[in-house]
């Protein structure tokens, strides 16, 4: 059974440019998005049981290659990186379109796995949107997944309940962090991984047109980034710690909060 795992590289640490409010990516190491590690782990355990081939698919800058090697070291068989300047600035729709285009080119994919959300922007859109482009069912928020013949049986983690569903293959599943404990590759795994193939494809290789990807292919636009305005009048308490705490305690008491 061939499995695709969608893997996004996210900065190891979220640091913000305090004057512009933008995410600092320079000099911060890229790592596999946490949930996507769970998705890779799931793929590897499924492969151990049912066989098949695992392909990692990612869209991002060139240095994502190293991140993908980490995923290969965890047990995936090959990786595809969509790497093209025209793909930059994609919103979720354009991201999903590019990912789905790659997945369609791969042989006989039965299962597509995504994380529930990413650590940097976390919209949770990409999974369902890739499923739509592929025309296959989506099962989101999965904490447990079994393959039974040509069906999957998945336990979804919802607000107050767990819902177990069945769906036919091919299908797309988004996983939550609690589904498993991702393995750490061993030293030998790392060296084995670098022998595996990472294909780098640009938009043209995939037949993607400029207005389908990147900023041009994105219906959403960020028009403004701004510091949140003060929602309340904040009374700053100053003085010695003892004074501050006794005046606060008194205020809280007089408001009947204590």
């Amino acid at each position, binding site marked *: 059974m061939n499995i695709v795992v969608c893997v996004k590289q996210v900065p190891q640490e979220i640091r913000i440019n*305090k004057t512009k*409010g933008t*995410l600092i990516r320079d000099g911060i190491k890229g790592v596999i998005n946490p949930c996507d590690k769970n998705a890779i782990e799931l793929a590897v355990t499924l492969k151990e049981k049912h066989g098949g081939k695992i392909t990692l698919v990612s869209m991002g800058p060139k240095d994502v290659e190293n991140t993908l090697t980490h995923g290969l070291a965890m047990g995936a068989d090959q990786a595809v990186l969509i790497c093209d300047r025209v793909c930059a600035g994609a*919103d*979720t*729709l354009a991201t*999903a379109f590019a990912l789905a285009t790659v997945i369609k080119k791969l042989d006989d994919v039965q299962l597509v796995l995504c994380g529930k959300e990413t650590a940097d922007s*976390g*919209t*949770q*859109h*990409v*999974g*369902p*949107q890739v*499923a*739509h*482009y592929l025309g296959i*069912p*989506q*099962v*989101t928020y999965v904490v447990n997944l079994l393959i039974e013949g040509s069906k999957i049986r998945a336990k979804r983690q919802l*607000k*107050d*309940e*767990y*819902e*177990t*569903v069945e*769906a*036919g293959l091919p299908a797309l599943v988004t996983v939550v962090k609690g589904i498993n404990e991702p393995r750490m590759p061993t030293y030998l795994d790392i060296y084995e991984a670098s022998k595996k193939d990472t294909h780098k494809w640009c938009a043209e290789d995939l037949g993607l047109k400029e207005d389908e990807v990147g900023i041009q292919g994105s*219906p*959403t*636009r*960020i*028009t*403004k*980034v*701004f*510091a*949140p305005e*003060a*929602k*309340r*009048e*904040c*009374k*700053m308490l*100053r003085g010695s*710690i*003892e004074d*501050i*705490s*006794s005046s*606060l*305690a008194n*205020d*809280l008491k007089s408001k009947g*909060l*204590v």
Partner: protein
Amino acid sequence: MKEMDRYRGVWVFAEWKDSQVIKGSLELLSLGRGLADELQVELSVLLMGDRLGGIPEELIYYGADVVYVIENPILERYTTSPYHRILCDLIRENKPEIVLFSTTHLGMDLAPRVACELKTGLSAHCVDLKMDKENRQLLQICPYFDYMATIVTDTRPQMATVQPGITSPPRRDDSRQGKTVRVEFKIEPGDIKIVEVEAKKEEDTEKIEEADVIVAVGRGLKDMRLAEELASVLGGVLGATQPITEAGLLQESRMIGQTGKIVQPKLYIACGISGAGQHIVGMQNSGTIVAINTDEKAPIFKVADYGIVGDVSKVIPALIESLKG
């Protein structure tokens, strides 16, 4: 006429549970009503399910002008494909300019797929919606790390998922009049079969959503025992930001914010929390908010009533003393 100008009207997708509209959907009615009035169009609500009883009328009492009702046993419990199919078809037919969803598991499963089929933009986790009236453009305001971002969509409809708890439900007015439109659809059960539903066993017996006092812990606090002590003096419970629960210092059920819980206690004490947008959306509607942080520029002070610039590990013990005294 431009294609865009064919789209008129504001739509809200309503969810219900135990024959009641959920709070998040009522809040959407508040927002939707405001937008519809500004644009001088109707506010329509989409309601799907089975045996919906008096819910359509309720939606009208809460501000809907039109309620589209699709009732069918297949829709009793949500599965993606029938809901998706109906929604896409109705949107194509009626061309609303705005469609709003609540950020729930259902909303987040459905909205992206619908937006994808309609090839339109979708913004996630909105905490405020404003209107650029001239261009009829919805300004979708989302947390952007410590900042906020305004997202707009150039295609129609403009779709957004909205954080619950960012506004209050509208006042119920049972004299309001509206129209209920029952839509008949040939509905296929779809490709997903629900085989079992089990209630979550809450391992955590304290429900932070119901607490009157929350002492919330962020990365600035190194010693969890201090927060515990403060919470016990105040008769409150502990909450946390995502990094704290991710580090395993508190259970996930204590996480407050975009991916965690939305809380509204009477008193909220933020200990060493800088106040990233993702956290603020979960607590900004609390009664009284006290923030303690070493950085006086920390965004948390913007939502606080009382601010203390200082080291939490020193402030908390002093506060405990004063509260006991």
